[in-house]
């Protein structure tokens, strides 16, 4: 059974048969972009549903169960409602920046999705600096949050935005450094090669102790970077209303909301690719069926997404000073020492390989 999943190449070859090359490659780009948009808009909606179901499960409720079987169409209905809602704004606000802000957030998170290898061939953009590109892109989203908070002309929104800026800038360091620790093992930044290296054992096993420390730091910092509880200082309901998106309504609010969930998916997907072998199956049990890689990739990603939801409903919210102490006084020094340990382990060839 052969299913070709190298989407960019397949679509381009199919189009070149019908029209000149230049037009075909542009059209192929547009089609691939539309496929990704459609898939992840729907996936984001279902992540919202998953979050609500998990929350209900943790709190011994049933959760959404009226729209569709087992509430499966609930978030679709919510999205339709949001599309039809009026777009409001505040007076004396900078309308241009106010309308621009959601697009920063959503575009930066959608751009990051392009580089993930879902299977060996299902990857839109295999750039040779994969991980670094992800870090670069994720640093742009915060501009959208800062702008949205300021141009709302609302004190709560501004405080939320400033908190978010502080938080994202500090935790970006930890995310970057913990990923760098793993890059020491792989010797490459390209995501497809990182997965290739893991055919001799997932990196979390290859790098044993420092890899596990790096994974823990990555999960803490990643949760903080997506502004989720217990690090949701940005939109702490009891203090700030809804934080930076207090004044947004309708579809613009939906962009912020969707971006949060897509970011969560991205953090989980990076963890899957870098620590848990990406689309590789455990012990190579489905090696003869490469297209099953999607199943493994999504399976591992969803387990980590579930872990992040578990955090959310387990830990109480941190204060802003505790948040900064955690990053600068604990995570960062641990991380730097961890990099040195990992370098020694790679140097002395103490990695575990099968």
């Amino acid at each position, binding site marked *: 059974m052969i299913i070709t999943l190298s989407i960019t190449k397949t679509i381009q070859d199919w189009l070149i048969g019908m029209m000149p090359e*230049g037009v075909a490659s542009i059209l192929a780009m547009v089609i691939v972009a539309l496929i990704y948009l459609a898939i992840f808009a729907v996936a984001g909606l279902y992540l919202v549903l998953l979050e609500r179901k998990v929350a209900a499960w943790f709190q011994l409720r049933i959760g959404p169960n009226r729209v569709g079987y087992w509430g499966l169409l609930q978030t679709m209905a919510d999205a339709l409602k949001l599309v039809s809602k009026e777009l409001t704004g505040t007076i004396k606000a900078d309308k241009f920046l106010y309308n621009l802000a959601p697009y920063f957030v959503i575009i930066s998170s959608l751009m990051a999705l392009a580089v993930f290898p879902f299977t060996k061939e299902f990857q839109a953009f295999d750039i040779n600096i994969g991980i670094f590109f992800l870090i670069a892109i994720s*640093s742009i989203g915060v*501009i959208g949050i800062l702008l949205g908070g300021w141009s709302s002309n609302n004190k709560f929104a501004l405080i939320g935005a400033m908190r978010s800026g502080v938080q994202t800038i500090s935790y970006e360091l930890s995310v970057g450094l913990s990923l760098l620790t793993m890059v020491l093992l792989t010797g490459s930044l390209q995501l497809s090669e990182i997965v290739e290296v893991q055919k001799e054992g997932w990196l979390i096993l290859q790098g044993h102790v420092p890899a596990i420390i790096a994974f823990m730091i990555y999960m803490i910092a990643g949760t903080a970077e997506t502004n989720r509880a217990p690090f949701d200082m940005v939109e702490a309901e009891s203090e700030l209303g809804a934080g930076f998106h207090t004044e947004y309504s309708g579809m613009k609010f939906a962009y912020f909301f969707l971006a949060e969930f897509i970011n969560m998916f991205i953090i989980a997907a990076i963890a899957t690719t870098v620590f848990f072998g990406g689309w590789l199956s455990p012990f190579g049990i489905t090696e003869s069926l490469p297209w099953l890689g999607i199943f493994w990739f999504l399976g591992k990603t969803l387990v980590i997404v579930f872990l992040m939801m578990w955090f959310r409903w387990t830990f109480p919210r941190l204060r802003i000073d505790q948040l900064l102490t955690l990053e600068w006084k604990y995570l960062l020094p641990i991380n730097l020492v961890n990099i040195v340990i990992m370098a020694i382990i790679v140097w002395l060839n103490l990695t575990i390989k099968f």
Partner: protein
Amino acid sequence: MEKYIFYILSVIIIVFAVASVSSRKMLRSVIYLLFVLCGIAGIYFLIDYNFLAAIQLTVYAGGIIVLIIFSVLLVHHIEMELEIAKPFRKMMTGLICLLGLGVFLYTIYNNEFNVVENQVTTTTYDIGAKLLSYESGGFILPFEVISVLLLASMIGAIVIAKGRKLNDKNDEAL
């Protein structure tokens, strides 16, 4: 097709650069500057120099612009608009800008550019090896000098942030 992308990016860069210096609202001109920097990153991507493009995005778009936004948000009366300059000043600025443009155009049209036959993708491995090589053409000395400079500026920042707490006289106050 690369030609068209290049022209689109150049138009974006020029339009937003002009908008950035001519906008009278502070935060808006910062955002226009962000678009300029992203456009430059796009040109790096176009010539397949991915590493520099990602550096451009992280350092300039993600770092510098966020810092500028922070400092702008901390300014009082951010909503005020910039004054319009006097006509004489406008004339002088225009003349100096034209002079600068002339110098640039003269250099660009009189320089012989080396045309590379085959497109080579620079990998991070090459960059790292070059940075740490001490043979001819290596960059170990500037690399070390920059690291010392960064350390010095970091210590300076800490001293400024600590302020008067570092003085011996203020020990009782602590």
